[in-house]
């Protein structure tokens, strides 16, 4: 989960535009509940990641997101009291009391799981394509320390992951029964992280950190075709999302009965969001650095 420069339109776009693109899709995932729209968002984001050469970078966040999404689905099905279409009567289940599994609760849990997945996909693409140094330049005038802390955290993730792997290898090299538990390794990783933090703090000092006042405005770099395309897609996603909500397109209700309208409005909305995810990636001129 760290930025890797790849020749892609999203990487070629400035950090602010690429961040806006990812956040626009995450916001759409949070706003919409319609399964078709959420499914379209998920597929569009995976296709976008593939087009940018970072599909592999989604594996780790998905490994975390899928169990979480499934847990949300199961828990909601078990604890939700809404819905009239009973699928199964489980009777008394300890502290949960009388449990009836309803179609509405299962679908609502599925929608929540889809939302989690869409947001995680958008965050995974964000981590893979948005240059943290670009974000630092963007936010340092507002809060340099916070921005720098975020960048350092991003920078240190792979370093600490390597430390953890090394410590685990060393643990496996211990003979016989002397192999200590993972807690001991975790403690050593934490101690190592603190040591690294001290070293990094010393480096920041000798690079002159903290000697100056407010930052000057960042140099105005000319907007490239990719900056325009990605920022326009982000703006369009936000506009369409707000418009659809105001117009009542892709509404969703699950209590007392499921109401998932599937008309031309929903289909067009799903197709539009998918197209907006991929449209700025079509032009591949000038994407290599």
């Amino acid at each position: 989960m760290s930025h890797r420069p790849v020749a892609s339109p999203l990487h070629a776009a400035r950090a602010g535009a690429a961040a806006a693109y990812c956040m626009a899709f995450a916001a759409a995932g949070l706003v919409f509940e319609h399964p078709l729209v959420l499914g379209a968002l998920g597929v569009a984001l995976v296709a976008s990641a593939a087009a940018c050469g970072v599909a592999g970078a989604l594996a780790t966040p998905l490994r975390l997101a899928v169990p979480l999404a499934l847990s949300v689905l199961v828990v909601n099905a078990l604890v939700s009291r809404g819905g009239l279409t009973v699928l199964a009567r489980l009777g008394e289940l300890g502290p949960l009391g009388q449990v009836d599994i309803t179609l509405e609760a299962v679908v609502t849990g599925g929608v929540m799981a889809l939302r989690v997945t869409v947001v995680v996909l958008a965050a995974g693409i964000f981590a893979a394509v948005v240059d943290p140094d670009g974000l630092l330049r963007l936010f340092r005038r507002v809060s340099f320390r916070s921005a720098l802390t975020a960048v350092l955290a991003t920078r240190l993730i792979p370093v600490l992951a390597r430390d953890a792997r090394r410590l685990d290898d060393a643990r496996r090299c211990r003979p016989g029964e002397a192999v200590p538990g993972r807690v001991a390794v975790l403690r050593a990783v934490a101690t190592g992280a603190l040591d690294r933090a001290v070293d990094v703090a010393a480096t920041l000092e000798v690079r002159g950190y903290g000697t100056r006042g407010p930052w000057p405005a960042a140099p105005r770099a000319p907007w490239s075709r990719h900056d325009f395309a990605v920022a326009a897609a982000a703006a369009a996603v936000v506009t369409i999302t707000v418009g659809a909500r105001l117009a009542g397109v892709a509404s969703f209700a699950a209590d007392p009965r499921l109401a998932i309208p599937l008309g031309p409005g929903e289909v067009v909305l799903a197709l539009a969001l998918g197209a907006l995810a991929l449209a700025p990636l079509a032009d591949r001129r000038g994407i290599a650095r």
Partner: protein
Amino acid sequence: MTVLAVQGLTYTYAGAAEPALRDIDLRVEPGEFVVLAGLSASGKSTLLRAASGLVPHFHGGTFAGRVLTGGLDTREHGPADLAAVAGTLFQDPETQAVLGTVRAELAFPLENRGHGPAAVARGVEEAALALGIDALLDRPTHELSGGELQRVALGAALAGRPEVVLLDEPTSQLDPVAGDELVWLLRRLNEEWGTAVVLAEQRLERCLAAADRVVALAGGRIVCDAAPRDFLGWAADAAPALQTPGARLFTRAGLRPPPAGVKDARATLRSHGLLAPTGPPSAEAAPPRRRRRLPGRGGRSAETTALAFRDVWHELRGGRTILRAVDLDVRPGERVALMGRNGAGKSTLLRHAAGLMAPTRGRVEASGRVALLLQHPGDYLLHDRVGDEAPAAAIARVGLAGHADRHPRDLSGGERQRLALAVVLGDDEPAAVVCLDEPTRGMDRGAKGDLADRLRGLAAAGSAVVVATHDAEFAAAVADRVVLLADGRPIADAAASEVLAGGWYFATETARILGGEGGALRPEEGAELLRRRLTLEVTP
């Protein structure tokens, strides 16, 4: 103006019983290249940290005396202020890159100093070109090799053209090629930009040829401050552990003056008529041994082979091939050095030996337990007491019995290495094979000598010892056989005297001085050869 002036500096770290520096007086003039020499814990790093203002502002402690860096008094100006006049580089490349890309890393110190966008952009370009890292500008820092990262960190230290650059063993984590390149880069910047350099270094043979002056420290005091040749003359009597192999060669052969580098040594030998005419190294000196037949039943029985690699391949899914058809036998009691550039496959081979990795083709056979000590001994130390890390007998065997109640983090680098060795050796079944991966990084000569003795002892007790190292001097001290790896397979496999005498990078300083003559690798062997030649000259 003097770029660094230290007057009567005595400094004690917070909580320490003894001062780390005592009564230090030192002046460094513009354009000087000064090497700080000394054993571990002699005070080199602390002196550099005092010059950069980290002592006392970052570390606290008790500070007496005065340090002026670029004319700024470090009692009044912290490290961030001093960064404008002094660039600082530490040992570990990993912790010196604080931002995501090389461009941002080089820009960071300039931006901190308040330079405008145009000046920052120009400073970044100039630093990148000066250090030859312009091709890396848009690369993420976490993808760079150690050598590349250290160059980037040096670029960040030099961005803005400081008057003096302070370097604390910057080559200790690098392979010899990257280390040599860094030192020569410093010399070039010193000559072309006039930047004063203060460099703390353990492997003096790497940098004395570039130095104007050597300042030796012991116990926190300056014990010698002289030109390189004079320092080596002093070290011959007062601090033999600080002598370079070339200087030891000359001292033992009774030759004067001690040489500051290979070129210097060869010129002196040539002037005395002691240098044999050299030809190209023999291509047949060290052919790889494929499936070497060993004495005993079928040559490869469990009794005669402690460790065997049979057609071992390691191919990464979607990546490169790290090991290619490796066939290698190691006998009990044999001491083998694995050498080769970074990425040649040394560490991967050791990981296969210990079962941390499995071959994608072929097999690895061991006659018993394989103990593996990886590159960072600190990774093995997980407890709060030395006594809890390994069985008491194992700790006693590595000479740390009296340290059982100390915290492992309070041990010196050499002691930590010994403790980690005790952890992997354990107490129960003796290891059939002991493997060590780059065990000498950051060690001084004394600690290396101790480790070499210990490994010879293990081999004498019957264990096969396999050491992956870039350190040709250590390989010569430990190994009776050297396997040179390149691109995942052995390209040379022969006695140490054959492999290490025939090259340039994979050769000891003695071998380089003598052109590989007589297979002499260590100063003692080279001196014997020179003495014989001197005797022949005197008695025709």
